[in-house]
């Protein structure tokens, strides 16, 4: 009998993994969270950012009352994209932006006409970054608008626009110095989706077994706790990697996000983070043994912090010190830092090694804890 027990590890593990996979595939709600939700998130975050931006409320500060200046802004007032409001001074305009009446300020200095005739005029544009997804397009529209105006002016004068006087838009985005964009969001999305699949789904499925009493029967067999955990982790690891693949494909195909760093390093780092997320999920479910509690805690303790405190949306440098401490305790923070660098900047080895080591340590500690906490005991 004891020889059968020795060889039983692989048989039991294989059998448990097959069971988990079957359950995963048959339970539509798991698939919805594992695959449906990532797709929805990609579309919301991806297209939510690049949706058409209209009705831009723009404060106009015209210190130059010359005909040229009037002509410059008339293009804007007629555009369907803008709702211009004139302001008497920059002080007034800033006040309007602070209270949210306008989203941007266009400032023509008193010597605009003179600058233009000298061949190079500067127009100041200040855009509020509070609604980050609108800031980028606003700047783009105005640039287009300026280029159009120049084109028309050159046409009328009958000269080559490239040789004529140039208007330069000097733009600044206030209240959010890291201008969020699709490129910036897609790597962050990967973190969110892996947290969701790793922590939320795993916490749920393990807690479900506790709740339905299926573990009670399972425990009184030759099965070992390690085998139960490994079998839980394996299929959800697969689902997490599928989520990663979905995000990468969407990033490349739909949003043209570059992958400047090495793909193998990116995959390796993602696996490490997925193990961390799975470890948290297993810990939560072992501690609560209740699906409802497990899902609440998984959302509050992993998904929301990963969304808000990891630097996914808000820049960490702007956070108060106390919250920064929490942020830097989150594994998601390191993964976001690492994956953004890999996507957008390239292979920066000191950072890769540092973050991988941190994530690896988290994975080892959390999974070991999950193993220690999962005992074949009911009391």
């Amino acid at each position, binding site marked *: 009998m004891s020889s059968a027990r020795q060889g039983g590890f692989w048989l*039991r593990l294989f059998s448990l993994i097959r069971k988990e996979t079957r359950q995963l595939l048959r339970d539509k709600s798991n698939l919805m969270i594992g695959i449906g939700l990532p797709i929805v998130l990609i579309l919301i975050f991806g297209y939510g950012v690049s949706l058409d931006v209209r009705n831009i409320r723009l404060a106009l500060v015209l210190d130059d009352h010359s005909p040229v200046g009037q002509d410059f802004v008339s293009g804007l007032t007629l555009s369907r994209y803008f709702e211009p409001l004139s302001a008497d001074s920059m002080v007034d305009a800033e006040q309007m932006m602070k209270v949210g009446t306008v989203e941007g300020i266009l400032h023509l200095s008193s010597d605009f006409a003179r600058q233009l005739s000298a061949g190079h005029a500067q127009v100041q544009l200040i855009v509020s970054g509070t609604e980050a997804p609108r800031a980028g397009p606003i700047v783009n529209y105005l640039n287009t608008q300026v280029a159009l105006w120049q084109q028309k002016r050159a046409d009328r004068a009958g000269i080559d626009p490239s040789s004529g006087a140039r208007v330069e838009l000097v733009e600044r985005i206030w209240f959010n110095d890291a201008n969020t964009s699709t490129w910036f969001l897609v790597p962050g999305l990967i973190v969110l989706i892996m947290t969701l699949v790793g922590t939320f789904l795993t916490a749920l499925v393990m807690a479900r077994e506790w709740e*339905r009493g299926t573990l*009670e*029967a399972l*425990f009184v067999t*030759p099965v070992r706790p390690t085998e139960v955990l490994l079998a839980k982790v394996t299929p959800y690891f697969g689902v997490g990697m599928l989520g990663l693949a979905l995000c990468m494909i969407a990033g490349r195909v739909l949003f043209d996000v570059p992958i400047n760093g090495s793909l193998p390093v990116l995959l390796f780092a993602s696996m490490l983070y997925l193990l961390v997320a799975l470890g948290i999920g297993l810990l939560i479910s072992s501690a609560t043994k209740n699906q409802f509690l497990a899902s609440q805690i998984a959302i509050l303790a992993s998904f929301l912090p990963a969304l808000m405190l990891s630097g996914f949306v808000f820049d960490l440098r702007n956070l108060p010190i106390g919250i920064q401490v929490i942020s830097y305790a989150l594994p998601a923070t390191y993964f976001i830092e690492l994956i953004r660098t890999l996507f957008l900047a390239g292979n920066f080895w000191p950072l890769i090694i540092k973050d991988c080591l941190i994530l690896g340590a988290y994975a080892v500690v959390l999974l070991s804890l999950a193993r220690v906490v999962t005992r*074949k005991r009911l009391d």
Partner: protein
Amino acid sequence: MNRPELAIEARTVHKSFRDKQTGKTEDALKSVDLQIPMGSLTALVGPDGAGKTTLLRLCAGLMRPDQGELKVLGIDVAQHPQPVQDRISYMPQRFGLYEDLSVQENLDLYADLHGVPAADRIERYRRLLHMTDLARFTERPAGKLSGGMKQKLGLACTLVRSPDLLLLDEPTVGVDPLSRRELWQIIQQLVEEESLSVVVSTAYLDEASRCDEVYVLHEGELLAQGTPDLLCERALGCCFTAVPGKGESPRQLQSRLIDHPDLIVDAVPHGGEVRFVTQANVTQEALEPLLRGARTQAVPPQLEDGFMVLLRKRLGAASPDVDSLERQRSIAGPPDEVVIEVRDLVRTFGDFTAVASTSFDVRRGEIFGLLGPNGAGKTTTFRMLCGLLPSSSGFLQVAGVNLRTARASARRRIGYVSQKFSLYGNLTVLENLRFFGGAYGLHGKRLSARIVQVMEQFDLSGQARTRSGELPGGFKQRLAMAAGLIHEPEILFLDEPTSGADPLARRAFWRRITALAEGGTTIIITTHFMEEAEYCDRIMIQDAGKRLAMGTPQQVRELVSTADPAQGRLSMEDTFIGIVEHSRNGSAGHSEVNP
């Protein structure tokens, strides 16, 4: 490997649990000593909360005793649970079948986990599937099996190999008599063929009497142990049946007997007679005022009789004060008036017919029992009567109205006690009663007076400020009854109110019910305990949505003709099984679940 002499050996095993919310510790097992030999079929008997499940979990290595020593198969299970778990099989009360996996996949999983060689599987599966009658359903997801079939599959999963010790925790709880009998046939067959050692916990004493040895647990203590015959002997010479005199129903005689705990240990209606157990050394003359000329006959004791003697000795009298319930004649109207009328009632869910063209009447003051196997349509019928579910077609009137469409005022005329006792666990007893009273439109002095009354009637007085979630099971049931009756309804609906209750609590429950019926309240009740049908004036047996039989318990019993008159009076359970099986065999190709 040398085989140990004892399957389980417990020395002063103690286990207590701390309630996380109240911080109180409760003893689940108090210094229990056990010696269960190998190769025997042993029963752990006791009401809910006796410690049966805790004891089995300790033996399975899922918990550790706080004190004492526990050896399973000669191994100290607290120190070395894994070697024990490698050799035993354990079926918990709610067996953890994976509901999205098919019957075959569940079996395969357990066979893999137990390392059953592929060569042995074919024969083992064939045998298990044959015994459990599941061979037709191997591809069906376990979640789509009926309750009884799930239980059989759970048993099959624990038996994918022949274990050195089999632990079964209430394998028949919530299972209808038919499935119950089939499960026991499987267990007994395996015990004989493979000389298995089995320890089974149960609340049914007839199941315990099939075992070699019985251990009686009560509130964590071992009350008695021995062979079923030995336990029966405690009631030797004290068991009688009495035929009620003219103009008296068995229920009335039974009520009178059980109201005298100084003379009578136990009395139950049985087949038109009353079966009773007297206290030791009670003379026939002393009984005469109670029997009022009813003919008596001495009968051999059964395990339940011995068990009742034990419990009474331990707990003293527990007969409730029912005078005020009987006096409570709140209902105006002629006594034989039809208060529930059902004609050709049908309920379908998609293409599944849960209730097929059913008709019956219930008269004022009747106790009407709905009986049937799992999935027979009892609960669906019940819900339609209470107005919780619309009927697909047919005519339905309760207290002159259809409750589905009736105004709230009409609904006040019924009371409903659901299976799970819908009480608010974090409200106190008083707050619950006040809430339910208010919900039925009682207020002010009238509500206060009713609360005092029901607290007295249901023996809740000492517990007014206790949160209902912290009450023991028996109290919860009484509180649920009190809440259902606070507005003095004409008709009371009870959905399996006695499941999980110990025999003493059940006697007290039925004493109150019979008192209510005396007072004119109409009672509709479903139950899994077939012997409780004897308390009913009339019963209806349903299976697969169809009405199979209806009438007084005696009339229904007579439908099943016994070829052998020497067999005597059929028990209600045998009657039930006879009727259901007859109907199933009659309709060709019919199966327990609908395809």
